[in-house]
């Protein structure tokens, strides 16, 4: 500070952005006739969100006539902040600058997790080899509560409704918008009720993903598939989807409303689907109805598909209520017509409740009654008796 420091303000027209930008140039007035070294950056004062890394592009320019070997270091920095000065992949401590040339490097400031919002200052210093002369660059960082730029989640349909049946799936279309200019590698996470499965996939693909790259200032759609567990009870279920990239994150709440699904199975009590009976006589089959849906079944009625003139009777003939998970046994009397031809027949029984209908195919082997067989035997016996009568009357002559 004992040296004579000249500060010049130069206003230039910002070519790239088409707007005015001010460049603060800090020059080193060489005491021994060295040329001026200038540290500069396009945006010396920036604002940033919490958890966001701040990057400055630093330009160092040798405007003098003499080549310079310069040391660069961070003079002051806020407590616990991590400041790195880099060119490509390595950190920089000193650089050699030919007369009239310039060099650029990157300064990255990473605030600690618990950094409070407020104004912070980083001072970068360049000194020439003998350490006599120095030039400083002040970088001002306004730290804000919410991130500047970053990620935005949006969806057109945040609430989906469906029946709670097996294998039901809900698909949400969620758009991820990257507000910053830099591409972001976005991690995807979800917080769902227990046993619910949430998977992410690209909008029109089936592969499951956990991160995706979103280019700067672009929007990318993803598909969030939510699968409730089997027979989940009816109700509203919130699912929180969170995206994060670096320290930036955003979340959105998706909602699934499950309504009760009616479903039932119909089977015979011993799972045997064939039965045997005699023409003209009733054969009993026990049916087992099970409510394996997620809603109660009401007013269950029965009907049957049967060959002509057959009788199929259900006992009881209707059922008022079958609660979730319950089973009920119904007796079915199948009576083939007396004139039925022997052999196998197909009889279907149906249970209906509202628009829900379940049927079961039974195979019935019909046998003709053996009564006529005995009549035949009787005829033969009568004929044989007649023959025996003849023998006794006419024989032994």
């Amino acid at each position: 500070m004992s040296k004579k420091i000249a500060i010049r303000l130069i206003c230039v027209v910002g070519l790239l952005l088409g707007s005015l930008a001010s460049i603060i140039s800090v020059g080193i007035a060489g005491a021994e006739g060295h040329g001026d070294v200038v540290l500069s950056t396009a945006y010396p004062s920036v604002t940033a969100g919490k958890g966001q890394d701040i990057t400055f592009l630093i330009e160092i320019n040798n405007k003098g006539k003499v080549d310079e070997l310069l040391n660069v270091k961070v003079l002051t920095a806020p407590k616990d902040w991590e400041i790195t000065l880099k060119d490509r992949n390595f950190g920089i401590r000193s650089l050699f600058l030919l007369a009239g040339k310039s060099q650029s490097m990157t300064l990255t400031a990473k605030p600690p997790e618990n950094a409070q919002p407020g104004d912070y200052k980083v001072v970068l210093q360049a000194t020439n080899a003998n350490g006599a002369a120095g030039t400083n660059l002040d970088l001002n960082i306004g730290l804000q509560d919410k991130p500047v730029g970053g990620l935005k989640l949006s969806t057109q349909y945040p609430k989906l409704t469906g029946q709670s049946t097996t294998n039901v799936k809900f698909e949400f279309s969620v758009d991820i918008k990257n507000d910053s200019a830099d591409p972001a590698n976005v991690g995807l996470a979800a917080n769902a009720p227990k046993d619910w499965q949430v998977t992410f996939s690209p909008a029109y693909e089936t592969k499951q993903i956990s991160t995706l790259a979103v280019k700067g200032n672009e929007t990318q759609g993803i598909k969030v598939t939510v699968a409730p567990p089997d027979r989940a009870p009816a109700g509203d279920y919130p699912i929180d989807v969170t995206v994060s990239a670096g320290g930036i994150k955003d979340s959105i709440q998706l909602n699934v409303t499950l309504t009760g699904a009616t479903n039932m199975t119909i089977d015979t009590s011993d799972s045997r689907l064939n039965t045997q009976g005699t023409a003209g006589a009733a054969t009993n089959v026990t049916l087992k109805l099970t409510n394996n849906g997620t809603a109660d079944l009401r007013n269950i009625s029965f009907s049957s598909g049967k060959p002509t003139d057959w009788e199929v009777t259900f006992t009881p003939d209707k059922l008022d209520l079958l609660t979730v998970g319950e089973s009920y046994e119904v007796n079915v009397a199948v009576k083939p017509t007396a004139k039925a031809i022997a052999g196998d027949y197909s009889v279907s029984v149906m249970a209906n409740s509202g628009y829900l209908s379940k049927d079961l195919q039974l195979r019935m082997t019909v046998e003709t009654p053996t009564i006529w067989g005995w009549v035949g035997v009787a005829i033969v016996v009568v004929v044989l008796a007649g023959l025996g009568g003849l023998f006794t009357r006419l024989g032994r002559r």
Partner: protein
Amino acid sequence: MHGLSAVFEKEFRDHCGSRRFMILFALICLAGLSAVYVAAQSIRSDLSSDSSTEFVFLKLFTSSSGVLPPFLAFISFLGPLVGLALGFDAINSEKNSGTLSRLLSQPLFRDSVINGKFLAGLATIALMLASIMLVISGLGLKLIGVPPSLDEMVRLIAFLLITIVYVAFWMAVSILLSVLFRQAATSALAGMALWIFFAFFMPMIAGIIANVVVPMNADPDTLTLLRHENVSQMASRISPTTLFQEATVTVLTPGIRTLGPVLVRDVIGMIPSPLSVTQSLLVVWPHMVGLVALTLICFAASYTKFLREEIRA
């Protein structure tokens, strides 16, 4: 009883040694073997392509390749001939040659003669058909290599019994004719005439009877058609040949569920599947009863006639 067994033994020996029997036996054997051989050839090619291997053994007796009729057809054609050949001269040739009065002078009852002759004929028929069936089954087993199931065996035994009864019926008819007619040639011709009538003319006559009972106009309705068909069928069942054919086809083809016309309403809900043996037998039970009863009635008639006859020495 002693007399009965003596007559039975003598008649049985005569039958087995006679030229007549030898020729018929050779004829049926040859026809049966060739029919089964041809059937087995076609079954073998069917088996390699068709997946259905149900009741293959029965197909030996019922299927044909078109070159030769199936065994079943041969039996229903030649069976009556055997029956007629065994009985047409049972009584009248003995009467004519004078051996009957000599026989009756022996210490035996008169009914033993006719009983013995009938039983000897029955035994001959049973022996002949059983041996032919066994030979054919053996050949079939060798050719197709599929052994018969229990179900099939029961069906084959039922088929054998029905055939024995059927041939015995024709023998009973020919014995009756030999009692009725004095000349052996007459009774033989009468027997042939009856056979031809029942085998060939009865189906036509059944049609005529049906036309008379249920007249058919140009466009008959379903009910008329059904009645016509029923009457025609019942009329043709007067013929024992029809009874035999329906019974054997049903017993040997498990897929046949009923005989006669079937309405569409009866078919609703029906699953095409084979019947069990007992059900198949129940379907043709009336046929079997009819055949047995006819045989017994024919025998009873000849018995009565023979026993009431005057036999002069």
